[in-house]
């Protein structure tokens, strides 16, 4: 018997989401930095990333099940695939749009190599990186739902599909509301705060 109570389901989903999102954040950042550092990688991988991003993550589910079996890993894989491309693309474009003047100024003050990267390039690209992270987060949610709806295991998506099977629309709409609320809360608590802090520092906020 599966326990279908919402808190447990939400907890399971949340854990998957966090694990998948953190992996995609880490890999996405590294991938983005690597691409922005090398022209060769940029030319070969950038179109590929764009293409992969247009591919809905749900398309990966059959392969994920083949590779990882019905279970935790395949859902996490789908989440990672769902979020990674928008994050790394945001990192690449953020780094490309860093004003050259900042880099020149840092150079004349003796900043070199990795140090100038961490103290100038990344902070300067941060507004764009944060918006990519935000976008990645919403893609991760979608991927999570796709994964849970299509692989009957556990979590919010599974409870939702159970509601469908039992013709219990209360449960379906209830889960939808829970997802919306969780999304909003996390955005308010994390992303909106980070974004506002940066916009304030840069003098870009509207009030």
């Amino acid at each position, binding site marked *: 018997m599966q326990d279908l109570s919402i808190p447990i389901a939400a907890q399971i989903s949340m854990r998957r989401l966090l694990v998948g999102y953190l992996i995609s954040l880490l890999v996405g950042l590294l991938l983005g930095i690597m691409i922005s550092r090398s022209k060769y990688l940029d030319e070969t991988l950038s179109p590929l990333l764009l293409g992969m991003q247009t591919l809905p993550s749900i398309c990966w589910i059959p392969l994920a099940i083949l590779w990882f079996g019905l279970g935790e890993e395949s859902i996490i894989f789908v989440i990672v695939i769902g979020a990674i491309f928008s994050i790394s693309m945001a990192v690449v474009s953020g780094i490309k749009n860093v004003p050259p*003047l*900042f880099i*020149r*100024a*840092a*150079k*004349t*003050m*003796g*900043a070199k190599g990795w*140090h100038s990267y961490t*103290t*100038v390039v990344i*902070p*300067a690209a*941060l507004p764009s990186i944060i918006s990519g992270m935000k976008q990645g987060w919403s893609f991760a949610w979608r991927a999570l739902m796709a994964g849970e709806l299509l692989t009957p295991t556990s979590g919010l998506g599974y409870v939702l599909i159970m509601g469908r099977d039992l013709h219990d629309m209360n449960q379906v709409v209830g889960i939808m509301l829970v997802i919306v609320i969780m999304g909003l809360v996390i955005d308010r608590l994390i992303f909106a705060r980070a974004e506002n802090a*940066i916009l304030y*520092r*840069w*003098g*870009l906020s509207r009030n």
Partner: protein
Amino acid sequence: MLEISGVYKTFTQKNGATNALQDVHLSIKKGEFVVLVGPSGCGKSTLLNIIAGLEKPTSGQVCKEGRPILEAGPDRMVMFQEAALFPWLKVIENVEYGMKIKGLGKRERREKAIHFLKMVHLTRFATAYPHELSVGMRQRVALARALSMDSDILLMDEPFAALDSQTKSILHTELQQIWCATKKTIIFVTHNVDEAVLLADRVIVMTANPGRIKKEFRVQLGRPRNIEDIDLARTVGQILGELKEEVEKVAKAELDSDWTLENNSFVPGSNTHLGNGI
């Protein structure tokens, strides 16, 4: 201490190559205030960037105390036309940035930063973010940041060009005071001849296409200088005379072929029928 010898710089673009600099020789003594003036496109900023090590000459070299300059370094601080402050750092952190790279301790850094902010009269805004300052104040912070590095050479690339004229004249006075107090070698690029004569020990007039040094003027006037000073105005006049044909040459290259400076500097007034009523 700074020896520029036989520097050439060619930019290759789709529509051919431009000679930004051709056979430039110049030597600058320690503690000298040298101003490069010239029409737009005469390569004065390029020359400054080469001295800074931000660009490489096509041939020739720049030596500082006998050693060739190969890359940018903290011994040659640059002030750009824009302040180039980092928007994610507070004013004081911006000033400390370079000293941090230099490896100064936290307390020493803070003390020095406050010292130099005091020099540009901005201690009140130490914890503000750059966007909260006016353009002139940002340029002051950039000056404090440049001074904080204790470089013996300060390179300034039209640093006051974007400022309104009141702010500019205040900063001119302060820059002269700071120069007298710190004894730095300053190389200053501008297209404004008044500014050049006001600040310089030596004004280097450059020509465009190809970029070359045309003439040198020594300005031997007491400081602080005043823009209304008659001797200063005379020197400005001499330099402007030298620049006139250069400006015409550049404008001719950009405009239609029927344009000449003589024809187009005459403005017919509304009062052209003098004596009609007699």
